[in-house]
């Protein structure tokens, strides 16, 4: 899948890239994307996307873990009723330990699954031109759609080291 036509610029510094993204958005470019080797907060803030939905994967995962832990411990204790030390067959304090561990386990695995899924889905939805330099250094800013000449002008004015059209 190739990205939408647009203009790709390379920046040496994250704050220049952030400035360029803001300028592009103010100039009417709605679809501005970035790629970088580190999570520069100023660039992520400038792109202006809403907060990630990860919490909606992590917390239900943890809740499923709690329920699975309680079901496993209570269910198996009732299925094989072994009294030890005169304690109740269904003893909640030790069962909380198992439920807690399974909550952490399921929460972590669901977070991982959501991260992998979101990365793959996001990559397809908002394709970025393949340029391995941005995994190593600098920041890539891509203005998809709109007037390419106007975008290139804004990007150069904000300190882009290199600007190129992507068809």
């Amino acid at each position, binding site marked *: 899948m190739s990205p939408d036509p647009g203009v*790709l610029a390379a920046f040496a510094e994250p704050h220049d890239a952030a400035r360029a993204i803001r300028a592009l958005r103010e100039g009417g470019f709605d679809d501005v994307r970035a790629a970088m080797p580190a999570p520069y907060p100023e660039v992520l803030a400038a792109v202006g996307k809403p907060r*990630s939905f990860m919490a909606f994967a992590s917390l239900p995962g943890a809740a499923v873990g709690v329920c699975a832990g309680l079901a496993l411990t209570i269910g198996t204790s009732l299925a094989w009723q072994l009294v030890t030390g005169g304690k109740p067959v269904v003893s909640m304090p030790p069962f909380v330990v198992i439920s807690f561990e399974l909550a952490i386990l399921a929460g972590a695995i669901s*977070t991982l699954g959501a991260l992998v899924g979101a990365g793959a889905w996001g*990559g397809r939805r908002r394709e970025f031109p393949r340029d*391995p330099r941005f995994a190593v250094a*600098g920041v890539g800013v891509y203005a998809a759609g709109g007037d390419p000449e106007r975008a290139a002008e804004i990007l150069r004015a904000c300190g882009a080291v290199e600007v190129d059209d992507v068809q």
Partner: protein
Amino acid sequence: MSPNPRPSPTRLERAVLAMHGRPGPGYLLLLALCGGLAAWGAYAFYRLFTQGLQLTGLGRPVGWGNLICNFVFWVGIAHCGTLISAILFLFRARFRTAVYRVAEMMTVFAVMTAGLFPVFHLGRPWLAYWLMPYPNQRGLWINFRSPLVWDVFAVSTYLTVSVVFLLVGAAPDAAALRDATTGLRRRLYALLAFGWRGTDEQWRHYTRAYLFLAGFATPLVVSVHSVVSWDFAVSLLPGWHSSLFPPYFVAGAILSGVAMVITILVPLRRAFHLEDIITPHHLDMLSRLVVLTSLIVGYAYLTEFGLALPQPASDPERATFLYRATGHYAPFFWTMVTCNCVLPLLLLARRVRRAAWALVAVCVLINVGMWLERWVIIVTSLSHDRLPFAWRTYAPRWPEWALTFGALGWFFLLFLVGLKVLPPISIAEMKEAQAHAAAPSGTGTLAVEVSHVA
């Protein structure tokens, strides 16, 4: 802009690629040494497998010895990785950036080592799967009220979450290395990168997911060693039955873990010329953690004695603690106190903290002390319990020592192999810190060479 130009690696990528390069004779020698130790341990396990626990020094009343000491010791070593990567991440402690990947690797390999010991100790290791709940024809289920079953769940969860945390953290770094290399290495890094391309969309989810994973790992790190301490604390044995155990064990685990991280980091930075990445500041901050946790451990030792000694002379708790300090195993006890409470105080001196090899010497001795701590807790209590006619001393035999040193070899073997596969420095986080350190007022340049990031 040229299509898909191959980027030239920065200092950080070069440092990691140098570590992943062709191994030198020193590396191969260490690998052979660790492999030899691990093979000795494997041979001892074979002998235990075929002839049973009769080969060990275990018996009545000391049914737990070296093998369980090793389990607790390695779970403790594993704790530091999560402390440095997750807890210090949540506290925004910047010094963790350069060192946390090594600590995370150490965590995973230490849990993999710890998990072997309960299996060795089973006597019939081929029945280890009985520890897991699974439907069977007899309708039997495991006893969830047993702390040994809690251990199974706690340690396996800890291993899984630690592996997830390590791999998620390493994905952006693997992508940077993938894009700076060719051939087989490129394929390996591509596998570890999980399709990472560093887009804003990926980072947006990644930063949030990493935060949640750190949030999950933080209570986990406290719970795992608490659960391990309950193996002892929920029994009625004098010297074990104490509500002090969970915080005492967690502090001890962090002490031994940080000491092990320093023990590994100092030779690593020397061997791979990482002095500009892992700076004296990083070692200094880790040393302070050692001092802090050593003081907590010392306080726990004092509290144990402070609670036991005022009891009447007939009290078994009092007798056990007096036995620890003055009985058959007293030399081990006092070595433990010296290594864990006295020697770390040397690190209060800035000169010792900044002298890398003095620091390593102190940290190695701390780990000797922490291993002895587990030995003192387990063996003195069992050998001297409530029934004087059953008192008996315990001495480990060769298979137990072979497994103890074999585990050391196995751990370092895994670590040496891991160094050649995983990026031992967090390139992405270092770059973020570097960019913001280089341009505090928004006018600086994005330095590609690492300077004093700390």
